[in-house]
């Protein structure tokens, strides 16, 4: 990856992080868009799995600092999805919009599963509702937002050559 591409990827990452802390609270939806997951996934496919895990860990830790009761859960989940996205990037080399949408959906749902499990706050029916209703809904909305952002940022985010 050239310096220009690296700079553009960093810029896109920063924009997504800013969106997470501005647009998300502004919208205030019950099933919010997770811009941090989109940022980690888009970064992860451009770097090696180790670096992707590190990016995910740092991003998760930053997010966890606002929820000290679940401290570490976000870092663990982000590390996992970052590394997994980086290893599985060969699947998404085709730059297919639908595949990217599925990628975001699966990434967000996996993040929620790991997060809720590591957090150990909810149990029973509430856990099932969270994982089988709210998380898929949030993942779907995140996927839609991710596709829109990907289309908007396409000039900036060129996919890495296979």
């Amino acid at each position, binding site marked *: 990856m050239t310096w220009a591409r690296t700079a553009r990827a960093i810029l896109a990452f920063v924009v997504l992080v800013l969106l997470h802390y501005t647009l998300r609270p502004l919208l205030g939806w019950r099933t919010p868009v997770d811009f941090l997951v989109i940022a980690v996934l888009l970064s992860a496919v451009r770097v*090696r799995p*180790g*670096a992707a895990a590190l990016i995910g*860990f740092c991003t998760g830790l930053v997010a966890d600092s*606002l929820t000290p009761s679940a401290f*570490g859960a976000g870092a663990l989940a982000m590390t996992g999805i970052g*590394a997994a996205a980086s290893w599985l990037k060969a699947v998404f080399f085709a730059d297919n919009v639908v595949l990217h949408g599925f990628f975001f959906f699966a990434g967000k749902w996996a993040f929620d599963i790991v997060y809720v499990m590591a957090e150990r706050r909810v149990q029973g029916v509430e856990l099932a509702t969270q994982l089988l209703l709210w998380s898929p809904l949030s993942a779907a909305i995140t996927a839609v937002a991710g596709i829109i952002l990907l289309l908007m940022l396409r000039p900036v985010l060129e996919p890495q050559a296979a």
Partner: protein
Amino acid sequence: MARAVRSGTRVDTMLLVACCVMALLATVLPVTLREAIAGGLRRTVVAPLLSLQQQAERGRSAFLSREATTSRLDSVSLRNMQLARLETENERLRALLGLGRQLEWGFVSAEALRSFPIGEDHQRVLTAGSNAGVESKTPVVAPEGLVGMVLSVDPTQSIAILWTHRDFAASAMSADRSAYGIVYPHLSDSRTGEDIPPERYLLELRGVAFRTALKPGTPILTSGLGGVYPAGIPVGTVLGELQASEGWARTYLIRPAVRPPDVSNVIVLLPKRVEGQSLDRVWRSTVSADSAARKIAAAGDSIARRAAADSLRAAEANAARRVADSLARVGAVGQPAGSPSQPGARPGATATPPPAGRADTTRPSRPDTTGRGRRP
């Protein structure tokens, strides 16, 4: 090449494992340590993001509460608009209370209701009737002066005509009793409805002796002649003379003391109070009570000003005394008794403060200017 790939994979795996272990460790850290790390992050890296989030949330809550805020603003504006009206009404009621206190007895206070359509603004329904002692042809007054007369009476209410009514007439005089006449409404243009000219709300003082000239601004009171209105009720003030056809009498245009739109609460003078009683003192004392209250307020201000000036003067005197004392003390400590207080001072000089004006700067008055250009 294969070794490099293998080595890279090993590094990736090690990084992944390290990150996972650290994340798992973070989940099981003691609360204090966890809070310390999270707090450190919040104060440094996350602080700008947190600020952005707070502003976004504030913006959202402002957006959500905009309708409630707008409706609250509307209701406050509405109340504010009503406030001016309430203040005016309050002032009028206070004045009415003052008038009632001056009258002491023989009156009934009533509300004057406007129950006639627009354009017929010459009558009022009063909320006091024969049960309260009101009779036909009894005068209706307000704190400002004469309003009109009761026309018909029911047990609980009565109908009064205002001075704007074409049947209104009252015997009147100038305040110095030099001119007498009859007051009528000024009916130069008797149109009705919305386009009533402003002159319609004026009065005329007719039949004033030709030899008597009234200056604009002269107060006109009821004279007590005719038996309906007692003497001394303010009717209005002279605006100017009207050109009349009669050559032996003058007619004056009068600005009325009471404006019809202001007639909302009135006092009905009962017949016993009207019989042979001059009410001149009532209005004079009402006016004087008002001016006395203003004078008291002004006096309070001047007393406060004088007290402030006195305290300032006392503070200046204290400061001057303190300076003089300290100078004296310095002189007493630094010099032996009987020696001059300052180097170069004459023997026998004391440490008393110098006079306010220097003797050498006091100029003698020039003989050529004496008595000229002096300020009184």
